[in-house]
């Protein structure tokens, strides 16, 4: 099972599911990360954390830990 936290720079994938065991999952869905959406890893801060994703035409930064609840195909 691959998550958004493991994406490489510039890698485009589709979201499969959101893991509800992560306390931030609701906010992540509110930001538009829903199953079926295509996301791309666009930037990584120093130390590879946080990560920035493109989703629905916006850029959203989040910690690696949080990106871990976005399950991708």
């Amino acid at each position, binding site marked *: 099972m691959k998550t958004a936290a493991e994406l490489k720079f510039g890698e485009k994938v589709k979201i499969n599911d*959101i893991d509800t065991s992560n306390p931030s999952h609701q*906010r992540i*869905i509110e930001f*538009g990360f*829903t199953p079926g959406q295509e996301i791309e890893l666009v930037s990584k801060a120093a130390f590879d954390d946080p990560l*920035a994703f493109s989703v629905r*035409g*916006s850029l959203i930064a989040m910690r690696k830990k949080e990106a871990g609840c976005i399950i991708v195909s």
Partner: protein
Amino acid sequence: MKGTVAKSIPLITLVGPPNSGKTTLFNLLSGKNYRTVNYPGSTVEYSTSNFSAKYNLNAEILDSPGIISLIPNSPDEKVSVDSLFFHPRLGSPDIVICTIDASQLSRHLLLVLQLIESHFKLIVVLTMNDILSKKKLEVSAEKLSSYLDCDVIKVDGRSGNGIPNVIDAVNKNLNELNENSKVKPKPYTAESGKQGLIDFYNRIETITDEVLSDVPGNGKIDLAKANKQLKIISTPYVGKKNSPDELTLKIDRILLHKFWGILIFVLIMGITFSSIFWLADPVMGLVDSAFSYLAQFTIYILGHNWLSNLLADGLISGLGSVMVFVPQIVILFLILGILEDTGYLARGAMLIDKPLSKIGLNGRSFVPMLSGFACAIPAMLAARTIPNRRERLLTIFVIPLMSCSARLPVYALLIAYLTPSDKPWIGGFLLASIYIFSIITSVTVAAIINKFRKKLIKAEDNSSFILELPTYKIPKPITLFRNTYSSTKQYIFRAGPVILVFSLVIWFLTFFPNVSPQIDTHNKTEDEIVQMERSERLETSYAADLGKGIQPFMTPIGMDWRIGVALISAFVAREVFVSSLALIFKVTDKSNDIQSSLLSSMNKAEIQNSGKKLFTTSTIVGLIVFFVFALQCLSTVAVSRKETGSWRIPALQLVIFTSLAYLMTFITVNGLRFLGVN
């Protein structure tokens, strides 16, 4: 009284996700009686206004903080959501106008759907249509309107196109309200869980598929253009709809680069702080000269008596010591505003999240801490945007250690004392060192407090950092100036009265009871007589009596009661230190300005009955160290109490920072003396 706030005119509330052009719309609609209590980092607190007179519309308009959903996720968002339903002063809105970014339609429609579910009378304003048309797409406002069953209007924030249509829609909706009785919004209770939100998004996708369409070609035969369009048509429609701004991605490749990103970040922060000093310096000189001229002029007109003394030394010098660093505050707020409006602050927060999380803070602590360099009060308010309670309390805890602008006049004076007049660069170097030292100090203290957080902070919950990185934009000067103006005004009106009152109190304590001391006037010039009278009056004053009690604390750090009185008065507000020193040591003499005459009398000051100089390198450095640590600001304590909900944290801050200040000053002064620096 619940639900029945007296209201004579209709209330129209603006809501919208952050960066959806909400404040721009507010500026376009609002009239002359614009009021705001806002702070850097967001539009938290409220701006209210009437409609601009040209629209001939009698209604109150309220700009609320940006939210992405009606399910709050931070204290900041909870306030916004609660007061959207029922504002404590203004009641429930008659109409809600929701701004949404057309280029981020699918994300921003979530809030719109939630507002409709809550039965608000809604008008949707579509902004940033130009960004969408760059992607060769457009939204059909008519179709969207029929899907949502409310008015949808396109507005261009730069030109103001579409504003008349907004006014028409407001009038139309207000008339409808008059005919039907007002429906009260019901608190948002729809399923907030995963499936509920996903269902919302499924509905949104059906809507966006219908309302978004390609911009039709204009029929001209232009081969290059036609090819380009062909290419675009050949790319899948979904990909086009969901691609972020190209330029923003390119800029981010540099500004969020692992190496260059950090370098540019450090550079931007460096330029920010150095420009506060370089740009403000000439203006500050002007303000200082103006006030000292006014003080001398007063004495010249009224002669030497208690009234002229009260006006010149108590009132004018006190006022001058506040006004002199207004230029620096203006510049700091202006730069913060530019960084915010271009979209860079969010990137700064992302870059610094990892290091800050190591000491128990959050990337979102960045903006509050940065604002702390201007003033701790707006900084503590800005900390409301941090969703995690522990991180928010810890951020509030360390904010008083940020070198706020009230310390500047103190440092400026002390540094001027140490800087040889032929080597002015030493002053800049010393000031930079103080800033770096205070940053290191606050990081260290945050790390230590974080270690003891179970005992000190008493809050623990899930730490998170999710932040939208807005599209880069060129800031709008009008918004920038409005915000800078209101922040500066707030600052002056908060600090001003306190300083004035304390200047008068200190003046009273140093002037009475021995108003006309008996001295030997034989063979003395008039100036010398005034001088001697002053020092005699001071030594027999109430302040001196008070000072005897402080002397035992001041001797170990190489100072005397006169500095003690100034330090105690500085607990009201740090900048009072300078005006108090001015009153205690200075004579309004014929030299150029307040500072240089104060410096020369500081140079002459001796520790009583010892003949030793009072202000030496070691005591000056000791004083600087004291100001780096000490929490000397009543307003900060009050705001800390309000923002943390109890006296625990402000009391801890006061005790820890003040004893740390005394201890570090003791170590510094005696350490320097041990090393042979007097």
